[in-house]
């Protein structure tokens, strides 16, 4: 009886009593004895046998022989993770992920989630370099300096935040680990150097933007400019008459100037005072080009 049971892993009490012509209590006694004493060829191990709601289970206990029911948030999170992963290069060679998602969708009553996550041209190679800890020579557009720069970097982690792709990389010129926008990488190639591996965790949530070393600005935003608080991580936010006041980390003065020009009258710099005229200055600089070519 036991080898038969071990081979199957499980059987109903009804089936076993019938097949082996035992009463239920005889079956239970036999199984309990086997569980305690063992039986060739299993003498050196305790057989794990237990009976639960009319079923007999035997063998190595596999905890999740059948998966437990997924809650709605879990089902949603798994499908979203799967769909997001499908968008990444090299995610589904062999089709295992696609099959898993089809099965998951079938038990969850359908799909319902689509993720649109296009990547900039450099992303696939940056990810590969991060996986290989390979050094890259890149031509990178520095928004802060308003120019293309050449540098050598070793990508460590790649992450997507609010629709933009970033890499955390060792910047060899400065010797520091920095965050770069992947869509600002114009040209790239491997240098041939492979650096030692290093685990770098990509930042989660809003903390990464709130670098303590970076200055911040307090802006008063009119309703039409409130999208700023959704697009960029804000440190503080409070409603004020006519809108909302937010504290933003300033990546660079140039970045803030460009933002202020985009917002126009929809934003006012509250603090620091030095930046209250920044929007006007940047607008004048841009206007000069139009005046030169005959506005």
């Amino acid at each position, binding site marked *: 009886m036991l080898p038969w049971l071990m081979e199957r892993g499980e059987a109903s009490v009804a089936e076993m009593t019938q097949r082996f012509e035992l009463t239920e209590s005889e079956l239970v006694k036999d199984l309990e004895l086997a569980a305690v004493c063992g039986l060739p060829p299993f003498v050196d191990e305790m057989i794990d046998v237990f009976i639960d709601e009319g079923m007999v289970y035997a063998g190595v206990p596999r905890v999740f022989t059948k998966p437990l029911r997924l*809650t709605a948030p879990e089902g949603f*999170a798994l499908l979203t993770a799967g769909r997001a992963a499908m968008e990444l290069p090299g995610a589904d060679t062999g089709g295992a992920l696609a099959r898993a998602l089809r099965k998951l969708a079938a038990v969850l009553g359908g799909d319902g989630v689509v993720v649109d996550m296009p990547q900039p041209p450099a992303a696939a190679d940056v990810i590969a370099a991060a996986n290989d800890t390979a050094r890259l020579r890149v031509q990178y557009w520095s928004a802060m300096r308003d120019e293309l720069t050449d540098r050598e970097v070793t990508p460590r982690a790649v992450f997507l935040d609010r629709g933009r792709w970033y890499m955390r990389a060792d910047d060899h010129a400065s010797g520091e680990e920095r965050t770069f926008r992947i869509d600002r990488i114009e040209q790239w190639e491997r240098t041939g150097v492979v650096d030692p591996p290093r685990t770098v965790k990509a930042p989660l949530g809003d903390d990464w933007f709130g670098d303590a070393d970076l200055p911040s600005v307090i802006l008063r935003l009119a309703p039409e400019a409130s999208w700023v608080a959704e697009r960029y991580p804000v440190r503080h936010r409070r409603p004020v008459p006519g809108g909302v006041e937010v504290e933003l980390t300033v990546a660079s003065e140039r970045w803030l100037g460009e933002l202020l020009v985009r917002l126009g009258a929809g934003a006012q710099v509250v603090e620091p005072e030095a930046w209250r005229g920044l929007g006007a200055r940047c607008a004048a600089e841009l206007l000069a080009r139009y005046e030169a070519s005959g506005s």
Partner: protein
Amino acid sequence: MSDALERITNLVALLLESRSSLTAEQIAFALEGQYPQGAVAQRGAFERDKALLRDMGVPIESEVLGGDQAGRTAYRIDRARYELADLRLTDDERQALQLAVAAVRSTDAQFGLLKLGGSADAGATVSANVPTLDALPVLREAAAGRSELRFDYRGTSRSLQPYSLLLREGFWYVIGHDLQHGMLRTYRVDRIEGEVEVGDPGSFLRPDGFDPRTVFASDPKELGEEPTARAAVLVDAVRAAFVERELGIDAVLARRADGGIEVQVACANVDAFRSWLFGLGTHAEVLGPPAVRAGVVAWLAALAGVG
């Protein structure tokens, strides 16, 4: 795996394997070292674990014992009540999901994966910060099950037959047939106010081959009164390669000797067009049409405090 997850997994395993229900003391003894010392701390941790498991959809059942343990409470998980039928993932399928979950770093996804027999992996080279909103699982189920929705949005009540959720550029959208307006509509999920009311499943049909990605233009500059409106913009050499990659080679109208390019850009949505333009700083200039160029000049002049 974090300590809490590990303890929860061991607790679930213990209760599933156990032939009879177990008291809290027996549980703490079996999970040696995983529960804190001291009766009060142990009790607190166990209560938190129970609450967590309940949230995961796996309630621990309790009964009061008789006989020689009379009065003590014992716990069990009724396996049959909480099992998901018919999901048989192969090892490579489970592994693929595991990698996907490692990239998204959501606790719900990790717990879900645990239930499917996978383990939550710590590291991934690539990760995505995917925003989570309470309404999303409800909206997804409604879309999958074809249930109608009612919700408040910007102060008014909306009725929607949801076809799908879409995550794009960091925002979640629910897209479907709007019953009041009689047309396909897109709603930002983070702008839904209050609770979402869900109707009965199977209430409508979704058009074949519906793809939410094609529903609204992925270029926000096209979302305006005249979606085909275009402006000609001169881009300096230093940003030319970037812009050409972004807009495509077909958008290039002319190339200048100094490396600059003239490109055709959608400008139906004036705000989006300006955002795009000013993102290029002093390296871009609107050439025409005259109304669009004048509009940009006026915007800059007002801000510069000129004229």
